[in-house]
């Protein structure tokens, strides 16, 4: 191209590329390698911290891995188990009461965490695709959880299937509304979505602590000294399809999350809505020129993002938590981990699925139940998880740098053929 020298218009190129454009560039360059390197580097630095505090990083990581249940996949062929309702058999340890099925149980727990991580990861990723940084996944998640428990514990006698659909549906709407506020403010007055979603996170937090806390309107009526919601009705609990329902088996939320991943991919690539969202994310000005209503896209993208997170909250409640206490709200960080899930997964459906598995496994492997205190204290391990997560997020920023350097090296290489740019820069 022989466009005018850039200096003719000093104002051009000053604005940073939108997050979506940056991540678009990422997807073009490097593919799956940088995320894997990012994760490995994070684990490596985490290992250094472990070693620095006098533990053996290798045995620690091995022990954590053992608790994730991912070793289940390594056991292919060692078992032959009949599938229910059929004559077929699979070669995995399906039955959890099998003496050798600890891996299966652990995997179920990992996948239980995978479900909400996928949903909150998608919440961040979808907004990203529209050029918006939704760090309100946590708020949208707990809004969904709160509405889920509210609906799930009301109307005890409702038809079970209907009850589940209603609870999830209302949670989805609530999440959509909550995120939609940020989208609306962005579209109408240009309020930055990062600030509004942070504020909405904390507003949701305090509203639910109020609602489920002592004397709150949604606190359980059975034991008024415990700040926790009523229990979800039996009929509203999600059916468990793998493992023992009494021991937190894997519920059908797993299927919902899988469907959500597919729906995410289909929406973005196969619908006019997804087309609009991506166009706005890459270049809002071109989108406007093309006849797209940019404001509407912002609002819809945020609402859909919030819907994902809201469903995630409801699935956890109806699937295995069955009640929501003040402590749960205070300790919950699923929505924040969703940011790391989306960033590491490069906002693609497959990427989100894989990085949610990574973080789900890490959370489960470092839980108190799974880690042998003789090898490594679980309390330490939980914090190790946080650090690894932090480093992943930090290095995602750094691999933007690597790509930028790469692009610049290419540019300079080109420039040398026809006169190098100025060596000195103003300081």
């Amino acid at each position, binding site marked *: 191209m022989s466009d005018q020298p850039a200096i003719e218009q000093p104002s051009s190129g000053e604005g940073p590329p939108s997050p979506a454009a940056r991540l678009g560039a990422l997807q073009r360059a490097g593919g799956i390698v940088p995320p894997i390197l990012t994760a490995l580097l994070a684990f490596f630095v985490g290992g250094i911290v472990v070693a620095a505090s006098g533990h053996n990083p290798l045995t620690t990581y091995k022990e954590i891995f053992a608790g994730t249940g991912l070793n289940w996949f390594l056991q292919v062929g060692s078992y032959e188990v009949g599938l229910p309702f059929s004559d077929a058999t699979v070669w995995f340890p399906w039955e959890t009461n099998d003496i050798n099925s600890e891996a299966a149980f652990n995997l179920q727990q990992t996948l239980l965490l995978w479900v909400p991580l996928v949903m909150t990861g998608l919440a961040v990723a979808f907004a990203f695709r529209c050029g918006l940084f939704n760090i309100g996944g946590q708020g949208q998640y707990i809004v969904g959880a709160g509405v889920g428990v509210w609906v799930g514990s009301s109307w005890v006698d409702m038809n079970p299937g209907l009850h589940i659909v209603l609870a999830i549906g209302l949670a989805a709407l609530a999440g959509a509304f909550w995120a939609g506020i940020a989208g609306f403010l962005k579209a109408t007055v240009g309020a930055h979505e990062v600030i*509004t979603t942070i*504020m909405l996170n904390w507003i949701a937090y305090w509203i639910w602590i109020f609602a489920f806390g002592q004397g709150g309107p949604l606190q359980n009526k059975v034991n008024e000294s415990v700040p926790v919601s009523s229990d979800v009705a039996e009929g509203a609990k999600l059916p468990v399809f793998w493992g023992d329902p009494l021991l937190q088996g894997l519920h059908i939320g797993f299927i919902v999350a899988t469907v959500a991943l597919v729906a995410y991919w289909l929406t973005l690539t196969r619908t006019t809505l997804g087309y609009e969202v991506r166009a706005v994310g890459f270049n809002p000005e071109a989108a406007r020129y093309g006849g797209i209503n940019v404001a509407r896209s912002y609002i819809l993208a945020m609402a859909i993002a919030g819907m994902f997170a809201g469903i995630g909250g409801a699935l956890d409640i109806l699937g295995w938590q069955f009640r929501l206490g003040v402590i749960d709200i205070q300790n919950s960080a699923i929505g924040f981990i969703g940011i790391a899930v989306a960033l590491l997964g490069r906002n693609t459906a497959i990427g989100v699925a894989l990085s949610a598995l990574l973080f789900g496994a890490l959370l489960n492997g470092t839980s108190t139940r799974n880690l042998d205190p003789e090898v490594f204290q679980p309390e*330490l391990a939980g914090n190790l998880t946080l*650090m690894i997560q932090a480093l992943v997020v930090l290095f995602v920023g750094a691999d933007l*740098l690597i790509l930028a350097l790469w692009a610049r090296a290419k540019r300079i290489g080109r420039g040398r053929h026809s006169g190098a740019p100025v060596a000195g820069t103003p300081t």
Partner: protein
Amino acid sequence: MIARAEQAGANVDRLFAARNLAIAGIAVSAIGFWIVLPPLTQRSLVWPVALGILGTLFGIAAVSRGVKRLGWWAVVLGIASIGLGIAATNSSVGHLDSVVVWSALFASMLRYATPLTFAAIGGMFSERSGVVNIALEGMMLAGAFFGILAAQKSGSWAFGLVAAMGAGAALALIHAFFSIHLRADQIVSGTAINFLALGVTGYFFVDVYGELGTPSEIPRIPDVHLPLDKIPTGIGTFLDDVFGQMNLMIWLSFLLLIVSYVVMFKTPVGLRIRAVGEHPRAADTVGINVYLVRYASVTVSGILAALGGAYLSIGFLGSFNENMTAGRGFIALAALIFGAWRPFGAFSAALLFGFSSALAQRLPEYSGSAATLFQALPYVLTLIAVAGVIGRSIPPAAVGRPYRKQ
């Protein structure tokens, strides 16, 4: 030309008059607040409602004359005054007396506001230079933990403060490096720092103190005792209750407020920081080192936020637990935005948010759940502020944008 100037003058006069209207509205509403509470405890509904309506009307009049920000405040306060009047006259005098102990409320407000003040003013330095800092939370947490760790190990609270500042500066430098040199997204980097601080402090807390937690004997930042009760009459007692035994850090926060105001608005350094945050290219063309200014500002913000955290652990509570800042960094961020990126604005917001915390702490005697809901106030107010309903908070023009040298 002259005619235009005269017209402009007339406009200014009008604005002035409307401004006074708004201020009168706020004052009237405040009086409405005041009379229903102890010690006056006016029991008739007529006065607070009348004053509230009057304040609201003044506010509306001011808004219609173009004084939006103050006018809306008068409206909001007027309505709040009516609400409070109804609530207060419906509750028993005993209850009111137990909740509204002004001296205790003020003292408590200052204690809650101090960590917010440190962090918010820290955030101001960073954001005024053009770097978004949502990592205030993490920097505070690091200050809280490393402050108590160093104080406990060395036996000196002063050493604890130094260590806290070091920890805050270290996190800030990471944030600065990623967002200035690597031009990473400042929000991503800030999010990472928050996670990192949570993980690192939690890890070493468990590693060093284990299940027992921090020991009870921690060198604490001392209180400053002033002989204010020597002042005769009730005022002396009141002043003594509020200011007499304040922690050294609270006094330092007052000092910081003044110093940061002077630095930011009365020195060449502040002028350059603001120039870099508004228009880095313009600053660059007159020879200001944009990167240097941003690095320094972000580092200062880390140090100040960490001091706020250290006040929590070795000043206020004398202990540490995991994630003890519990969102205070985000309230500080809210205070910064709400205070329109100015020291006194941020401090006023911190006082307001501190007051709501103090009130929430005392309200359980009334209604526990309502007290909880009160905690959401800072965030709701900030949301309203960024939405521009009550006068828009305008951030520095270049905030959040990485600067690329030509």
